[in-house]
């Protein structure tokens, strides 16, 4: 009961966040999805993006990752149910979604850049990328 309530509360809260943020996206059609917390957040982000594109297929979506957020874009990455991320990423990339990975994170965590899947592009810094895109009129959304 307790867990259920907690989960539902979190669902309501995060739903609230997404609601608020997508209302920004409606004007500009350009949206950053910021992923820095790990695979669980990435799973949410990918689901949100699929729904986002279902509602607004022309939205320009850029997923910016750093810290633990890069993990789902490494070769062989799977979600907690053992499903590989790459298939979903490929499908979204085919729809024009861009995936960007922070170089500083790769250096800091000693991850070989070759391990990053080909759908994702390296950028010098995830945080700089997030700020630059906002200067270009992108809305910021943190799933």
């Amino acid at each position, binding site marked *: 009961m*307790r867990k259920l309530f907690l989960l539902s*509360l979190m669902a309501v809260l995060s739903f609230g966040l997404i609601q608020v943020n997508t209302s920004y996206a409606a004007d500009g059609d350009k949206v950053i999805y910021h992923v820095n917390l790990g695979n669980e957040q990435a799973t949410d982000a990918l689901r949100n993006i699929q729904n986002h594109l279902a509602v607004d297929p022309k939205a320009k979506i850029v997923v910016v990752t750093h810290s633990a957020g890069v993990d789902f874009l490494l070769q062989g990455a799977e979600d907690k149910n053992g499903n590989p991320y790459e298939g979903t990423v490929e499908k979204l990339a085919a729809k024009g979604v861009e995936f960007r990975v922070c170089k500083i994170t790769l250096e800091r965590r000693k991850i070989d850049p070759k391990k990053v899947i080909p759908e994702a592009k390296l950028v010098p810094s995830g*945080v700089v990328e997030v700020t630059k895109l906002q200067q270009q009129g992108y809305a910021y959304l943190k799933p």
Partner: protein
Amino acid sequence: MNTEQKFSDEFLNAFVDDQLSLEERQQVYACLAKDDALNRQVCELRKMHSLVKLAYEQPPVPPQGLKSLSAGRKLGLGLAAGLALMIGGVAGWFLHQSPAPLSTTVAQATTEAKDPTKVLFHVSDGHPEHLRDALDEVESLMKHYRKSHEKAQVEVVANGEGLSLLLAGISPYAERVRRMQKEYPGLTFVACQNTIDRIQHEVGLTVKLLPGVEVIDSGVAQIMRRQQQGWAYIQV
């Protein structure tokens, strides 16, 4: 409406502890929307729960903090729920206030030079690892700007549990904050007055901020103001 008559302390504690049925909770939420006193009472309870959590995660604890522990029963069970409730509580609390004073002048807002890049980092999670990651991100951004000779103004706004980053005696990174303040002239650390007030008045903790930390009325209002002023926003 008289709170005491409506809900007993035990009932409200059960509410904050997440021990009530859906129907009972709905009853409380309905009253919260209309009753300031009840709202404050619940805020206070929630704040206490989250402070207890803070105290557990981040020793050393100031002596006053220990006193408040005795009241924090059932905390092991309620921690996670308490955190989620606190987020809700804070959100609810803000919604409940009259509109934030958007026109309040902030020291730096008026003294901007020719268009430096402006970035606001929002820190609201008090977990030490999280705070460390946040500082890492801020620092690598500052290094980037220094290297590229780009003028930048960066503000780290801490509220809720994230305020622990800036509390003397509690922050696990006091020294690092001090070093970063010195090393990067465009960087400021900013604390939320609302959070400070809640800790001081509702729990009785005396809040001491790290040296050089600025204070703004409300973290949430500041985030809105800054975005309206063209600042980039990033939650770390």
